[in-house]
């Protein structure tokens, strides 16, 4: 339950963060929340991974649908990927990994003391 709420909160705060700061501000959200909520390492990773992954996935899919894959198809070719869907997957994975690692870091730092 705490993980699920954390995922939603991270996603929500990240939306706000990216409106104002550079893309890597998401790392601070995914880092701070598990630290403050004192999540266990596995839960923290999951919260960051899921939170940022969710946010980036929803954003990318919404934009891609509105764009009818015009851009994603071209970017897929640029990245030597077979189709646009995999380009979305790569996008989401990058964000999710940044979130997961940040969450884990937050949890470990809390556990330092």
């Amino acid at each position: 339950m705490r993980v699920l709420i954390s995922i939603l909160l991270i996603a929500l705060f990240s939306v706000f963060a990216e409106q104002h700061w550079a893309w890597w501000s998401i790392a601070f959200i995914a880092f701070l929340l598990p630290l403050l909520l004192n999540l266990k390492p596995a839960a923290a990773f999951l919260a960051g991974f899921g939170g940022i992954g969710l946010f980036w996935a929803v954003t990318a899919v919404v934009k891609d649908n509105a764009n009818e894959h015009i851009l994603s198809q071209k970017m897929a070719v640029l990245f030597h990927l077979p189709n646009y869907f995999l380009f979305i997957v790569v996008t989401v994975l990058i964000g999710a990994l940044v979130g997961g690692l940040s969450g884990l870091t937050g949890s470990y730092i809390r556990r330092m003391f």
Partner: protein
Amino acid sequence: MRILRAIILLIITAGFIYVLDNPAGSLPAIGRLLDPVNGCWANAEPVDANFTFDLQLNELHHPVKVWFDDRMIAHVHAADDHDLYYTEGYIHAYFRLWQMDMETRAAAGRVSEVVGGKALKFDRTQRRKGMVYGAENSLQAIEADDRTKEMMDAYTAGVNTYIATLRYRSMPLEYKLMDFEPENWTNLKSALLLKYMADDLTGYTEDIPLTFLRDMLPKGEFDMLFPERLKDSRPVIPAGTAFEAPSLGIPTAPNDSIWWHFKAGSIAGTLHRETEGKGSNNWVLSGAKTKSGAPILCNDPHLGLNLPSLWYEVQLQTPDMNVYGISLPGAPGIVIGFNDSIAWGFTNNYRDVKDFYAIKAIRPGSGDPVAYWYDNKQVPFKVKIEKIAVKDGDTVIDKVNYTVQGPVIYDENFPGPGDIKTPMALCWMAHRGTNELLCLYLLNRAHSYTEFMDAIMHFECPGQNMAYADKAGNIAIWGQGQFINKWKEQGRYIMNGATSTTAWGDLIPMRENPHVLNPAQGFVCSANQTVTDSTYPYWYNGYFYEFRAWRINHVLDSMRAATVEEMFALQNDTYSILAANTLPVMLKYLPADISDAGKAYADELKGWDYRLTPESKAATMYQVWWSYLYAGFWGKRFKNVPESLWPSPELTMEMLQSYLANDTAKTGLQHVADNVKSSYNETVDSLNKLKKAPGLEWYKVKNTTVAHLTKLSAFSYDDLKIGGWENTVNAAKSNHGPSWRMVVQMSKQTEAYGVYPGGQSGNPGSKYYASFLQYWVEGKYYKLLFFPNDTRQDAKQIKYTWTLHP
């Protein structure tokens, strides 16, 4: 332990983010790029994006309306010139900023700054050519005229207003991929863009290779194989047109040693000419030859096929002007188009306005030369220090010496073609301070032939064949540009730069340029062929092509009651004059003892209609065979000389024809029958290979590609199903071809059609990025929406509206 664990993970995470936020080599910053909010996904323009909005732009004098039709053509209505060009700048930047930036960087030799050392040679060449020097001279001329100064200032302000709104999120995708940012626009950048066009259209030169060939061949043979003009040319100004007596005396060649020579035994293995010829077609039919009784003007300028397209289609209105056509993103005004009274179109004129001078440098001891001999005096070089910034590298300093003639483009530090180390100074019309923008300003507003002439007297470089039609029924063509009154052969070869006797002389008054108004034949036509017959009093040379002009003249000669549809067909015509005149000879000498595969190909060729249509296999067979045959004729004689320096295909064709007529070897071609046979054997081998991949269809072998300026294939379109070649009217080569096709019928209600291989948006993520491409490939046209000059328009024809408030 826990502390160590946390710190290690912190470092890993921070490192991961650092890597994602920083470009590595040619790879962009992946995290920043993929971020769905600000990265590339921000450039995924919704297909139903609403472009209607209100905007406050403080620098405007009055409100401005911009109407977009369903093809996203912008129709601008402004109250004065300032507001018009300010808005045009804003629109160009809004849709095409990155391209404007790159093209002006390319002109100025500043590409290394954003792509790294791989562009260094290109940048050095641009600096040594004197591109910035020429642009600065022109900028002075532009700013010295109140009209063009206001035009340019307003345009630049409009571009900068848009640039100021940009954040990383809203930047064109290419900036994100290449990891740099736009800088402020300046009037100089627009001047650079105009010089970029001048370089594209007059930069081609044969002075160096012709010097080599002249030195290599006996005079008789050289004169026969490399004639100044082909005797059967159908010139731009119809043969027999009377020219006025020249106001200047025709100079005679000086007696001193005026030429520079290659050292005996030099090898020309690295000499090269460009292979992608630059061509264009325009023609105008008088009302006597059209069905409607109104003149029809057609134009298709051939340029490099790129995305974002070189052109941006637009209509511009102020209370005293209403003009429609194609504009160059990066410069104000309309280049080719029509207004409510006249229509005009350009093709490249190709008279030689770029000459080389061999410089006798003087060096103090062992260092770089500091001066040169000129009329037996020592004259110090003017030195321009060129600093070339290189991305991820040290700034490179190049020293360019200037003589009285111009910049020394080649020397020991930067050898020229054929490894020429003798310093070569460049004298080029594009270096001069000319104001072509004033021509466009006046042309856009011209209502009569007199006003058209007044306008084009300001178009000095690049020289263009300017076709004209008006609603009064007049048609005309001018071989326009600023030219020098030269002595015979001046500037055809590398000249001795140590004497003032070889220097460029007087300017030919532009009113004396070759032209014709309402010729008896009822039409005018240019397709980069020789400008005049030999009765034109002033001497000139140039790089002329004849095939397309032959074809167009031939079709128009017999045309009666022409319609716009017939004009579409002619612009898309793929009939090969070369094939029609050479294939019968080739087939005649084809021996009987050939393989079965060879017989099958020959049978297909016998039934061919000489059209290079996309799916034609015979077209491929002929093109391959011709290239082997051509190599057979000239390859041995011109060993070590690249193919593009061989006698022209036009001349080779005429030799083959006369060979056939006389059936003798006296016509200059040796062993025709042997060459036909051996080239056919090579052809059959090649065709057998091509058959497996990519297939024998002409479009597959030719592979016409419209490439993004970065050459990234992801943003390019290849394998386009289009016919033609450089020698057919539809001159679609591999990466070069018709950059805009336009047909304008000057009836009471102007009827205009057009298409270009691209789209109005420069954003690869927009549905308007290449939206016209398929129509272009298929030879279809859009009817151009020419709004009346009014503050209100028919709402049914408008999809989006910008309302701009001061």
